[in-house]
């Protein structure tokens, strides 16, 4: 799992790539969470375009990240999942959970 970050207008965009599996998560979790916490904007977007595989630890990582953002008063959404990742999120019925919130 690799990741890059860039701060766009209102959102911190975290681009993940590779396999999001248990070992990768335990290595990178703290760093991504620190960045999400420090992000000045109100939105965090996790771009999954480059992710080829994600196991349940990876899903747990995204859930944890979403909760963290929520606690900080930020929104967290997932963008561009590749077909297998989209299928996984669908199977777990998490597609809506990670989708963009309705505008207020």
């Amino acid at each position: 799992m690799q990741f890059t970050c860039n701060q766009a207008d209102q959102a911190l965009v975290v681009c993940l790539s590779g396999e999001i599996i248990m070992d990768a998560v335990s290595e990178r979790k703290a760093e991504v969470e620190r960045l999400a916490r420090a992000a000045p904007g109100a939105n965090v977007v996790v771009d999954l375009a480059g992710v080829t595989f994600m196991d349940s630890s990876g899903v747990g990582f995204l859930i944890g990240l979403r909760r963290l953002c929520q606690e900080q008063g930020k929104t967290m959404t997932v963008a561009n999942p590749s077909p297998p990742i989209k299928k996984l999120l669908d199977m777990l019925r998490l597609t809506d959970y990670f989708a963009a919130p309705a505008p207020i």
Partner: protein
Amino acid sequence: MPVMRIAIIDDSETFRAFLFSLLVGCGDMEVHASAEDFLADLDAGTAPPDLVLMDLIMPGMSGLAAIKRLKANPALADVPVIVVTVSDAAADLAEAFAAGAMDYIKKPPCRPELLARVDSALRLKRAIDERKARERELKAEKEYIAAILEYSHDGIAVAGRSGRFTFVSPGMERIFGLPADTYSTSDRWLDIIFPNEAARDDLTDIFVSRPAPGHVWRRLYPFVDKNGQARICQIHFSTMPSGDLILNIQDMTLFEKQKEDLVKKHTRHQKDLDAAAEIQQSLLPRRFTMSDSLRFAWEFLPCDNIGGDIFNVFPLGPNHVGLYMLDVSGHGVASSLVAHSVYNFMHYQRSTLIDRSDGHIDVVPPEVVLERLNDEFPFTKFQKFFTIFFMTIDLRTGYARYGNAGHPAPQHITAAGVVTPLPMRGTIIGLTGLGPVPPGELTLAPGDKILSLSDGLADSRNAAGEYFGEERIDAVLANQATAPVGELLAALRQAAWEFCQAAPPRDDVSMLGVEFVRPKG
């Protein structure tokens, strides 16, 4: 090439101007009317010239005295001096040469001769300058290397063919705690430092045989420091083209200790994992036919690190059977502990699954059970979620109810071999507020099967990195749809086993199948 500087010292202004005019183009020139004037400038810190043309007979200090002064100063002794004089008396010249002059020119000089002599003197000076610069560089380099050896933490020693050390760096003293002169030969060194016989024999052997130049041998040796403490060093041996043996020595005591501790810790963790895996397996249902109405079978391929899969089939009151399969996110001890905790919660005698009130024994609908699990295991509690498929079957009628929280859809396989995934699914357990799991129901006809698989099977990968995938699962199902449930699972297991070439899967692979044989009579 730097411009050379020529000093002309003569008391005659006319002659100074004459020399100056002859030498134009040979270098930068400075003129002095007396030796005192010239020496005073040098004393004041003016950079010395590259060549001195010195008149011998001058009022005040003579040229000869000035030459002696120059040559007596080590910083100026290299500056060549050409004596320019009217006298060609042998005694005078001998005296000038004895004082350090390198050449002489008779007054009045003829231009070609003057230029030739000046040129050769300057060339000599240049050669001297270059040699001195090289010497300075070499000295600095030598000092630099000495400093590296001095401050390097490693010990470096060189042993000649005779076994005598030709070089021992200060690092050796730091590592072994003994002054280098305690041992002058490799034999002495081995005797003093290495009481371990095997280590000593091995080292002796290397000193005798020596690695071929270009090859490096590296080994660890136990040794004893000056306080009698057992320590460990690593020695790299390499041979110079001359045949001298170089030893690079590092103290590895701390590193080796840390490594040992790590191995101990790892062994302990591995034992824990093995024990947890055993417990996980002991909780799996025993293989037996529960009644004439229902058959079941299962396969379990544990991952090499303990996983979070657990499943069970059990009687639920007098007329029902319950079955579930759950997969806690992640793997490792934490996931397995959560799985055990859910296992306990799902124990069939608990009120979670059966409501006993007013003398009735009611089987709690699966979606309600999943709701209770959701209350009991929020994500925030363990930073874990899980997926679960739970089904109850009324053995009298084949009426089955189920709830599926994010688990891969189980397959309903009819006696005729038609495979249909069970459609109703909700989200994972652990996230509240996402709505209840929708209730599902169907009625099993005799010969119908229900097959539930954890995602570990589809996600299994072979050495080439390919996923087992749902296509392979579907292919086996299509092939074995009418086979008894035990054979169907055995075929899936076999396919997974062959695909992974017997390597343990990355995540637990669980398969559970039930077959409704006939209504309970």
